[in-house]
């Protein structure tokens, strides 16, 4: 069971096999060293004190002081070694998980919350690491100790040794009785914690709304009740844990006492010496403590099992969109972008794009319009291959996008999205995000084209101003213009703009448009916009409705269609007549 859960993690240990073996060897050595002091004490009692012979005392005393010294040094090496392997392991695991996450498809991110992913990445990895490194070492150390102790105890006195075996059996019963309850409590606790953190994240992301509706008190109550629930679960869990561990402790102590007194009774019956009893009791601890640790370990495995399961789930999440094994490098787009009877759906019963065909000549600007939710943004996602088409083909220069290398394919595009995504970094870094090699002159030129240069230049630190979560606040319009500048720096063959200029006032948009015309000149572009002034200048306007093309052509062509929907909307939007009419 455990191994199948861990199959995703064990390979990560491969680079450290050598070190791990060394650590295990060290552990074994330490365990043996730990078994020696009882023998020394026994020797002192039976060989020195009882017969009153001072001869061996010096040697024994030296050994008695040297042994812990050596053990302590070994223990230092062991701790540092375990930390190294453990931290390297968690480091590798995080890195590989992060790399995987960054390459998963949009569908995955659509259904999985970022907060949850971050918890997996940061919290669960640590838990698994701890089990696999620190615990593995302690298991080995326990096994060595136990083997040594069992042999020693049976050699010393088989009756008492048999007693130890009986006590260990009681341990097992204790574990069996408690573990189910603890497991359940733990699961409930995790669940309530997830709920609490999801609620909190939501609230922190939407502070503006919470504040503007004055809902702080209500949110406080919600938090209070969620926090209460989670704390009640923690309490149940902790009480269960505590019962279990005190039981275990009681068993260990009582077991030790029984052995000690039974041993003393045997001394009275002349069956063994007192030195034997001392050594025996110490050994019994070496045997009973591993039993305690093992039972605690079972509990930990439970805890970590949950984390490991969740991580395995993420690790086995295969990127839906990935390079075809025979993928070819795509040269910069020269010719046509073609949608050939493309259809797409997220769920089979709800088609989003139906039988969509379109040929876009190089350098053309295509405006996609239509009511909200008609599939415009989805079409753009298909172009970038965030999703694969479910029917038909999408071709760049006559090549199916699925046969192209993903990296090359996406390099063709520059995108500007509805919600501008900027990072915590300087403005310059944000602009050169797509092409880190861009020179300062290129960045400035792009900013000029996006009508943002003057603003940036007016800042005290100019392009080196830090923006993002903890940096300078920007308006949405400014953010959008920075993403536009970023797309320009990328120098893409195809430009994609999804509502890119919605937050800009018409004047800035107009200004950008002049610049855009220059940039768009020898590029294919897809633009989703609601403003007619933006749409009108496009070479090709595609009117979508429920995933299908209703009308398509240039502005003038569409206006000529009798009873055309485009013409109707244009008329309604523009035909407000004079100011007086509409102001009243």
């Amino acid at each position, binding site marked *: 069971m455990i191994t199948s859960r861990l199959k995703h993690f064990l390979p990560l240990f491969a680079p450290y096999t050598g070190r791990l073996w060394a650590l295990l060897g060290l552990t074994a050595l330490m365990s043996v060293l730990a078994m020696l002091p009882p023998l020394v004490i026994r020797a002192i009692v039976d060989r020195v004190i009882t017969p*009153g012979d001072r001869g061996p005392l010096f040697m024994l005393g030296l050994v008695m002081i040297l042994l812990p010294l050596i053990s302590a040094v070994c223990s230092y090496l062991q701790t540092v070694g375990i930390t190294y392997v453990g931290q390297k392991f968690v480091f590798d695991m995080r*890195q590989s998980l992060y790399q995987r996450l960054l390459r998963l498809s949009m569908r995955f991110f659509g259904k999985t919350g970022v907060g949850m*992913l971050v918890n997996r990445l940061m919290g669960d990895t640590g838990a698994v690491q701890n089990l696999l490194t620190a615990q593995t070492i302690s298991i080995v150390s326990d096994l060595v100790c136990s083997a040594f102790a069992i042999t020693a105890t049976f050699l010393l006195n088989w009756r008492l040794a048999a007693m130890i075996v009986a006590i260990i059996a009681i341990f097992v019963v204790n574990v069996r009785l408690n573990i189910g309850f603890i497991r359940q409590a733990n699961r409930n606790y995790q669940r309530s914690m997830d709920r609490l953190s999801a609620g909190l994240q939501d609230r922190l992301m939407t502070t*503006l709304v919470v504040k503007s509706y004055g809902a702080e008190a209500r949110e406080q109550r919600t938090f209070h009740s969620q926090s209460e629930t989670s704390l009640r679960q923690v309490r149940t869990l902790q*009480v269960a844990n505590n019962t279990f561990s005190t039981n275990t402790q009681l068993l260990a102590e009582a077991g030790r006492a029984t052995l000690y007194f039974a041993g003393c009774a045997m001394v009275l019956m002349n069956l063994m010496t007192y030195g034997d009893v001392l050594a025996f009791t110490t050994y019994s601890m070496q045997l009973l403590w591993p039993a305690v640790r093992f039972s605690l370990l079972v509990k930990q495995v439970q805890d970590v099992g949950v984390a490991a399961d969740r991580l395995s789930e993420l690790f086995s999440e295969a990127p839906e969109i990935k390079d075809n094994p025979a993928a070819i490098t795509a040269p910069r787009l020269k010719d046509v972008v073609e949608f050939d009877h493309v259809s797409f759906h997220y769920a089979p019963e709800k088609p989003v794009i139906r039988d969509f065909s379109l040929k876009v000549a190089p350098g053309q600007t295509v405006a996609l319009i239509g009511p909200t939710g008609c599939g415009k943004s989805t079409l753009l996602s298909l172009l970038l291959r965030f999703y694969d088409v479910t029917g038909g083909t999408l071709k760049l220069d006559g090549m199916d996008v699925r046969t192209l290398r993903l990296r090359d394919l996406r390099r063709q595009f520059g995108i500007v999205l509805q919600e501008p995504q*900027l990072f915590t970094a300087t403005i310059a870094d944000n602009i050169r995000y797509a092409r880190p090699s861009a020179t300062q002159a290129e960045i400035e030129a792009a900013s000029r084209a996006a009508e943002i240069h003057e603003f940036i230049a007016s800042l*005290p630190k100019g392009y080196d101003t830090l923006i993002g979560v903890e940096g300078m*606040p920007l308006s949405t319009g400014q953010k959008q213009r920075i993403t536009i500048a970023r797309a320009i720096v990328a120098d893409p063959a195809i430009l994609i703009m999804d509502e890119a200029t919605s937050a800009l006032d018409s004047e*800035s948009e107009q200004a950008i448009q002049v610049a855009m015309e220059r940039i768009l000149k020898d590029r294919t572009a897809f633009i989703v916009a609601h403003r007619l002034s933006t749409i009108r200048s496009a070479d090709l306007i595609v009117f979508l409705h429920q995933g299908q093309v209703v009308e398509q052509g240039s502005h003038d062509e569409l206006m000529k269609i009798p009873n055309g929907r485009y013409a109707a909307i244009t008329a309604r939007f523009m035909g407000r007549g004079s100011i007086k009419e509409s*102001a009243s």
Partner: protein
Amino acid sequence: MRVHHRNIRFRPPRRDYESVAGRLALYLRFLREYVWPHRRLLLVISIWWVVNAWTPFVMAWYGRIVVDSILVINTRTDAEGAGSGGADQTMIQQDRMPGKPAPTGRVGRDRETGFSVRPAGAMQKLGLLFGLYLLTLIVSNVGSRLEARGRIRIAQQLTARLREDLHRKVMRLSLAYHKAHAPGRLMSRILSDVGEVQDQLYMTFLSFLSSFTLITTGLSILFYLDWRFGLIALLTLPAYMFVYRRSRKVLDEVNAELRHTNSWMYSLASQKLDSIRAIQSYGRERHEDLNFHRLSSCMLRDTMLQQHVAAGLGTVCTIIASIGTGALFLYGTVRVLDGEMTLGTLMYANGVAGILFGPVIALSQLNVTISKLLIVLQRLVQVLDEKEEIAEAPDALDFPAPLRRGITLLNAHFRHEQQNEPVLEDITLHIPSGAWVCVMGPSGCGKSTLLQLLSRLYEPETGEILYDYVPLNRIRFNSLHQRVVLVPQEPQIFGGTIRDNICYGNPEATPRQIVEAARAAEIHDTIMELPVKYETLIGEKGMTLSGGQRQRITLARALLTQPDVLLLDDCMSALDAETERRIQETLVKNLKGRTAVIVSQRISMALRCQRVCVLDNGVLTENGAPEELVKQGGFFSRLYRQQTR
């Protein structure tokens, strides 16, 4: 220790807020605020810890009785003949004079002669002692069990209070604070930092108490048994002190750095995963791998450093302890051989010394725990003590509803902390009650800020905002936010059903009211097409909505509250022209007589308003009826010509 370079990208240097001197005060403050209310139960628990600290000594003492009075094992002295002397006599002697040698010499099993002498009834006494031993064990165990229940209860209540205080504080802090602090980092404080504190606040105290009792009791017993035993144990203490002091500073520093890196890793990961679209579409995955790698490596190096120091400390402590115990045992052996001490006493002293060094090591770990705890407390205090920039006045009034005279802005100035450029400069404006005002201007000119000032999400640096001549900062938050509702530019959706999202501002709304609001926002039909309609889950775990759908849901949310003043911040930008037109028409019908301040880029919206204000770079440049402004040849008339061309 080699110190590595930590100032890497995405990890700004750590700032220290608290001086070393303030640390004790910080700890005491938390004790006073969070632990003090539980003082009664804690007192009981502390007493138990002290009492329980004595049990190991009692246990060891039982062992001594066994050796000296029941088994009667002692060293063989040549002066004594084999088997001479009565066992009973020996026992009596020892009982009267503890620590004195039994002159009768060896009693017990003689290896050479096989002859042994035992006190009468030894078996029974052994049985009795066993019973006593078990009894002590069980009492101690049951007591600990009860005590743990109490401790868990305190920990839970304490955590709950701390968490709620933090949450309340965070909710109260201004928007400016939230803009400057990533949600991920605040979350890590409220959830994981508080989790670290839990019972640590008083556990440090309890374990100090218990360690202290163990050490003092142990030392007293050793001194009582033989002053030289006590001296040996006492000599090791300065060595310990020296070792702690040396490690403490490094550990503090590294722990602080570690937590700092950790919180930045959270922040980085959530930010990047949030912007996954931009990363994937520019094919920058490898670059992002590297960013993560850098931060992760920094954490790795710091963890290693921390472990080096902590393990080093532990090792040195163990070595000192084992030299101490070893010396003690050997000295005791010599004493026994000299016939000046019984074996039982030696075993007892050895046991006590073993118990003694344990708590000293625990004390050394306590140092580490406290330094970790203090760092967490510092991080919590940073949030708890953050100044609430916008607070409710103690004598606050209710919102003057219904609004009769209107809203007045008098010379309002505003600037963001980080920026020197003012966002709004000297805005003076009167909005009559019932009027619709359209605010226009180039992007970044301060339109959104103006609306946020009106709903008191920010406060003007100078100048005043008045509702019916009542200063805004003297209106109670609750009544203000019920009457003045802002619809933000970027729609914010909560995890929950569509219904929950719409009735956020008015949880008691009837289904009819909800449907009406949804109709007015032109989202009702879309919702009805969904399989479970209004109960559809949206937000992080639910259905993905398009930008336009999100905007319409937030609009419905605002309309449902029936506010006196509606502030719309360009909240229809993602809608198509047709939908927007329909919404505008419904708004005109529904909001007749209510005051509205609308930020928009669209001339069609402006034309529906009685007044248009144009902001340019934070200055009010045009202000008047749209008919007048269009003739003035300014920004508005240019816009008018562009859009109606």
